[in-house]
């Protein structure tokens, strides 16, 4: 077996864990091929796997992220404009530590420092959408080609979306107070120990925050996996249904959930024959747009800009969904 394949099946997909849980289910007197046994197997295996990956990944990624506090990102982006700045903004969005409750202060800090609105939005779109930990988790559930494709299209939405918003010249749509905010430059150099401490805190923090979403997500996933007939799902979200992508997107937008919670649902849906594009559209809609974050954003930008942002991102997600459904056969 080649090394890459081994890493994918044993380290990321944790085939050994799946086998161990299957043996455990059997030992408990349940048949893993039965509905109940299968549900228990899916639930236990997925929960353990997600929490192991989550802890390891968040630690490693947070360590890297400690080199890119928002102040530094703002300095790097300062004075740039044009498509290059949008690309850089989208890329930095993937490695700057992100917490949904910080996105508004971040928006204010970037705008106050004079960054173009379009660049700020490229950053704000990619930040929750192309989260490094979720990308590796995506590789563990599907495989690397899907994860890389997800990164590619996620960045594309952020870059194109930000560019469109920038071109529309909606600078006057930002709440007036934002312009009068002082720009402070905190410059701290951390020791290796402090970076490790930061990474450890992030792990506890994120695990404490997302565990209910993971349990609910895996629960729904297990239910779909074993109880909902493939025909029902197919009739609703099947690949031959043109409305599958819009429906998945519209369901996803108002929902606020962590990407870690949506992955098990995505996994189960793909298992039932739902198109990859439909599933990716659902995941992107859940993570990039949510009612609570839109309500928060409304306090710093005016309605037309908020509507443009929502519209541009939704259009991007729909496009990705349709394109991926058309080329699903390249991946699975």
């Amino acid at each position: 077996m080649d090394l890459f394949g081994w890493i994918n099946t044993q380290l990321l997909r944790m085939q050994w864990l799946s086998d161990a849980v299957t043996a455990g289910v059997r030992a408990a007197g349940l048949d893993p091929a039965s509905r109940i046994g299968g549900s228990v197997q899916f639930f236990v295996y997925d929960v353990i796997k997600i929490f192991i990956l989550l802890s390891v990944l968040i630690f490693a990624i947070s360590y890297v992220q400690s080199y890119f506090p928002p102040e530094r990102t703002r300095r790097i982006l300062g004075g740039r404009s044009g498509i290059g700045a949008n690309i850089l903004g989208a890329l930095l969005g993937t490695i700057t530590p992100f917490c949904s409750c910080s996105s508004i202060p971040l928006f204010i800090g970037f705008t106050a420092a004079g960054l173009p609105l379009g660049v700020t939005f490229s950053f704000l779109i990619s930040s929750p959408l192309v989260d490094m930990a979720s990308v590796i988790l995506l590789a563990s559930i599907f495989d690397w080609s899907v994860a890389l494709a997800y990164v590619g299209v996620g960045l594309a939405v952020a870059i194109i979306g930000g560019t469109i918003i920038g071109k529309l010249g909606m600078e006057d749509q930002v709440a007036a107070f934002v312009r009068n905010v002082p720009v402070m430059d905190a410059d701290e150099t951390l020791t290796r120990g402090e970076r490790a401490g930061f990474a450890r805190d992030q792990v506890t923090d994120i695990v404490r925050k997302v565990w209910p979403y993971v349990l609910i997500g895996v629960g729904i996933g297990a239910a779909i996996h074993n109880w909902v007939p493939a025909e029902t799902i197919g009739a609703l979200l099947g690949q031959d249904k043109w409305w599958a992508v819009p429906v998945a997107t519209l369901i996803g937008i108002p929902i606020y959930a962590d990407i870690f919670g949506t992955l098990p649902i995505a996994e189960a849906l793909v298992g039932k024959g739902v198109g990859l594009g439909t599933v990716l559209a659902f995941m992107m809609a859940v993570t990039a747009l949510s009612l609570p974050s839109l309500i928060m954003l409304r306090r710093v930008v005016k309605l037309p800009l908020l509507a443009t942002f929502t519209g541009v991102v939704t259009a991007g997600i729909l496009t990705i969904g349709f394109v991926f459904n058309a080329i699903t056969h390249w991946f699975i």
Partner: protein
Amino acid sequence: MIIKILGSGCQKCVTLAENAKAAADAAGKDARIVKVTDFAGIAAYGIMSTPGLVVDERVVSAGKVLTAAEIGRLL
């Protein structure tokens, strides 16, 4: 002294406020804890990650939930 907690009210801000209160009590200082939750107020201090901790109008930390002991050293 006046200790301000900057943050839109997420769990981290609540924890930070509790730790700040504990730190002030432990140091025997008469501190008033003020929570700043509106974005204009938070932004006025120039921070980009919440929660922020402000002691007598000086920003001492941002984006971190400091323990009571750590806050004690900053008072």
